């Protein structure tokens, strides 16, 4: 069972370049999320999607965009990367509804360095 698959695993990027982090899930969860993890700051929500076709802003959305064309895929795009976006990015999914236990299932992360 793959769960959440993220790509790339790591990437070094020049400032000003465009970058898309990919996320795919095979659990048919209706909700998906992007978090960034920075040392000493924990995890912070960037964007989320409760269902295909809808997205919302999280705690730190500036400089990022997302799309949710179908249930399984939730890419995160940095239109013009800046050094402060150097971080480890985690995609996650969860079920929403009567069966919702609240558990987030995380991928293994994408480490992004912006120079």
């Amino acid at each position, binding site marked *: 069972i793959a769960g*959440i698959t993220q790509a790339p695993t790591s990437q070094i990027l020049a400032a000003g370049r465009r970058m898309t982090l990919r996320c795919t899930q095979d659990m048919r969860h209706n*909700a998906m*999320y992007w*978090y960034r993890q920075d040392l*000493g*700051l*924990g*995890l*912070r*929500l960037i964007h*989320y999607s*409760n269902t295909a076709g809808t997205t919302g802003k*999280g*705690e730190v959305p500036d400089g990022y965009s997302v799309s949710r064309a179908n249930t399984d895929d939730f890419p995160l795009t940095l239109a013009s990367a800046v050094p402060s976006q150097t971080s480890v990015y*985690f995609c*996650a999914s*969860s079920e*929403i509804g009567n069966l*919702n236990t*609240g*558990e*987030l299932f*995380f*991928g*293994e*992360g994408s480490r992004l360095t912006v120079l």
Partner: protein
Amino acid sequence: QQQVKQSPQSLIVQKGGISIINCAYENTAFDYFPWYQQFPGKGPALLIAIRPDVSEKKEGRFTISFNKSAKQFSLHIMDSQPGDSATYFCAAGRRGSTLGRLYFGRGTQLTVWP
């Protein structure tokens, strides 16, 4: 503004000892409090969670204590083992459609010495 404050930042415990991590929150609308465990190079994974209608929840060696009036909750790891060495995050959120939108503490790096 940090929605969830976590302490200590790091913790060293001897094998067999008790590890205690504390968290505090401000927003009284939060009604779901999970703990996540993260090993190096991996994503976080749910360890245990509690809702504010109970004061304690135990799963094996892991116990969450919850104090609604003080807006505090803590994780106790009994008989700590070297395999428990990881980073632990507390979090808070609201049930319903926003349940996956969590506010995380800054993390506690636990090291258990054999």
